[in-house]
């Protein structure tokens, strides 16, 4: 059974059909890249899967259970976490707090125990902090130490992207949806992030679906590539297969002039 599966997923904004009868699946342990020209519906697809937008028709199954109609926080609880194309952190909260918010669904303590500072509350808080630090340590020395107490808005662009991934990791999802994780990064940062994506799967056991425009990244990390255009799947396969597919080239470069 696929970890994530959509059947005949459709979403229209007025006259524009952003997602058009899309059948898509991600199996456990896979790294799947979602590519396609601008406006192909990739981010809309992520928005629908995470419950931010309701689909017009179709099913979304996470481990076989339909999640259509769930609120975003409930979708996260089912094990789907995401990052955003235009990084969206909590800018006035510290690095550590950002990650701690990511753990919200994995912790339980309520208001009363917070006020009474019960032993259980203290233990959970302590563990949550430890886990958050451990998560941040995944990115080497970039987000540890004095960084814990810094507010997110002081971070460099690349560090904000890393922090956003850390926040999503902290939610302990099975499936990570990464929306253009390398956008705006320089070549060496891109290289590093490419390796991190593979490490996320190999060492941390996340299944990953990413939207990416950098074809070198796509080629290096993907087990499978799905190409969207006008909300429909126009090709699917390994990177090599997709890269030589005529429809894909057409979608990206336009039709050859009619002879």
């Amino acid at each position, binding site marked *: 059974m696929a970890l994530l599966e959509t059947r005949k997923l459709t979403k229209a904004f007025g006259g524009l059909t952003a997602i058009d009868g899309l059948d898509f699946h991600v199996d456990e342990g896979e790294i799947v890249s979602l590519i396609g020209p601008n406006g192909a519906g990739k981010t809309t697809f992520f928005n629908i899967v995470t419950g931010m937008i309701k689909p017009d028709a179709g099913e979304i199954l996470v481990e076989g259970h339909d999640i259509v109609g769930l609120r975003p926080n409930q979708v996260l609880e089912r094990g789907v976490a*995401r990052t955003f194309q235009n990084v*969206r952190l*909590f*800018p006035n909260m510290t690095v550590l707090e950002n990650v701690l918010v990511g753990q919200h669904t994995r912790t339980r303590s309520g208001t009363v125990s917070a006020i009474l500072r019960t032993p259980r*509350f203290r233990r959970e808080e302590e563990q949550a902090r430890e886990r958050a*630090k451990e998560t941040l340590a995944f990115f080497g020395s970039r987000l540890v130490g004095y960084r814990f107490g810094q507010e997110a808005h002081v971070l460099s662009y690349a560090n904000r992207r890393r922090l956003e991934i850390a926040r999503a990791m902290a939610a302990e999802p099975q499936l990570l949806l990464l929306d253009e994780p390398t956008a705006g990064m320089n070549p060496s940062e891109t290289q590093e992030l490419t390796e991190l994506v593979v490490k996320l799967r190999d060492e941390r056991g996340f299944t990953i679906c990413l939207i990416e425009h950098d074809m070198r990244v796509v080629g290096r990390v993907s087990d499978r590539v799905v190409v969207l255009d006008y909300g429909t799947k126009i090709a699917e396969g390994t990177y090599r297969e997709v890269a030589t597919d005529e429809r894909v080239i057409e979608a990206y470069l336009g039709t050859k002039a009619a002879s």
Partner: protein
Amino acid sequence: MSGVFEPRRAVRSGLIGGLVAVFVSAIGMVVAFADRMLVDPEVVLGYVVIALVPLTVGYMAAKPPPPREGVETPRAGVLNLGTGALTGLLAGGLLAFFVFVASEVNVREVLQNVSGELLSIVTFHRGVGQGAFWLVLGGTLIGALGAAIHLVPGRFRRATVLAVAWVLLFGLLQTLIAQVFRGLKIGDTVNPFLYEGAGGLTIPGAIAVFVGVFALTAALEGQRQAFRRRLAGATRAQRRGYGLVALTIAAVILAITPHVLGNFLSEVLDLAGIYLLMALGLNIVVGYAGLLDLGYVAFFAVGAYAGAVLTSPASPQWDPEITFWASIPFIMLAAALAGVIVGTPVLRMRGDYLAIVTLGFGEIARLLFLSDALKPYFGGAQGIISVPNISIGPVEFVSSQEFFYVIYGLALILIYVSWALQHSRIGRAWMAMREDETIAEVMGVNIVQAKLQAFIIGAILASLGGALFAHKIGSIFPNSFSIVVSITVLMVVIVGGMASIPGVIIGALVLVGLPELLREFSEFKFLLYGALLIYMMLNKPEGFIPSKRRSEELHADEAAQDAWLRREALGETEPAPAGS
């Protein structure tokens, strides 16, 4: 000559300053303050207000740009005095021009406060011609003086400004200060020296205050930094020790405060304390959760009425006459219910819409308590009277000095509650929601639940304040719960610093307590509030005492950073402990 002369800045600031000076004169502030003596015999509050204008604009206009890395930035020099002088000249000139116009043309039809008395005061009782001359000359000199502040070396600048401010404060708050000295049993020796029956500080008294504050500040300069550094480097146990010491000192001060301050000042502090309780609650709703609630007084009213109905023998319909302590759980329950009632319909609203709807709820609450329909239960316009005093066993809290302990005891508890909530899972969820509601939900925060929790907890805090208010006043009427209360509490939270507990405390004491002490100000209270709000929104949206790390912990951050870098350089691989 060193420094920079900036005529454009001077003209702009000068004209703005002139307009401000004309404004404060024309609205009657100067006349109202003219009799309030600060330092005997010449320094009266009215003149101080006028003089502050060229001083401030001169200071602002001559301010050198902040030093920037890699760029040669000009430092303040003699030429900056020229900028300040020109600024002051224009400010004084504009006021002089206004005086001239007002003496020739009758403007009282439009500006009622521009009386002969005003003109006489502003021209120093010397007639228009000579008065205008003195205004221009005085403006120029004071403007240059404002600019000169930049030329004073750093460690003395602070001390000088602070010393002058304290002299003015000693003059302004003489009843308070004289009472404090009396309370401390040194009034008989100190007060005659400082005030000597005069309307303000005596000149030797003013000099003594100036020298004292100057010396103290200059001596303590640098100590603060050192202390912070030590605090940052302290271990957890040491820090706990410091905390305990601070707590003990605070407790001792709180314990003796009402005795030192006497009855009237305790009354003022009681009022400020009740606002503090409300502000702590609103701080959770607005500061933490970012839900702008303009009808917060509704919860205060619910608390007051719940308390009154449950305890007063004169409650119209139903009078269980239980004690205050027994009524607390029911008050909290009623408040929680009110929180749900207000919170539920506004769950999907954001920002401005939320503010408008809650504004409506605040008025609805007042009108309901006033209405004939509910008159059998809440007494309508007659309200509920004979709310009994609070007592523990045989000890009854009657006077404002005694009531002080009840209010500030509760305040301490609620301060702790605020702090505990802020540093917890739910506190972080609130802050995430404040930062970005959509993303908070995507990251797993149940928005509905978090919002309702914020409303309910905020309502409970305000209701406790309301109940104390009912017991303190002894009777409650719907008109005590007007929108002005909501706005004042919101002011306290915004000006003090959103999400900042110390900010809320200081804000409540200053914004609620001070106007009570300075009766002259009461007429202009809301004008000053408004000006303050505009200034805050433009220049200090984070508040005067911003929340946590932005101020104090910045230094702790630096220390932690240094320590971490050092460890890193030594090649130790263990991850550094966090600053927290």
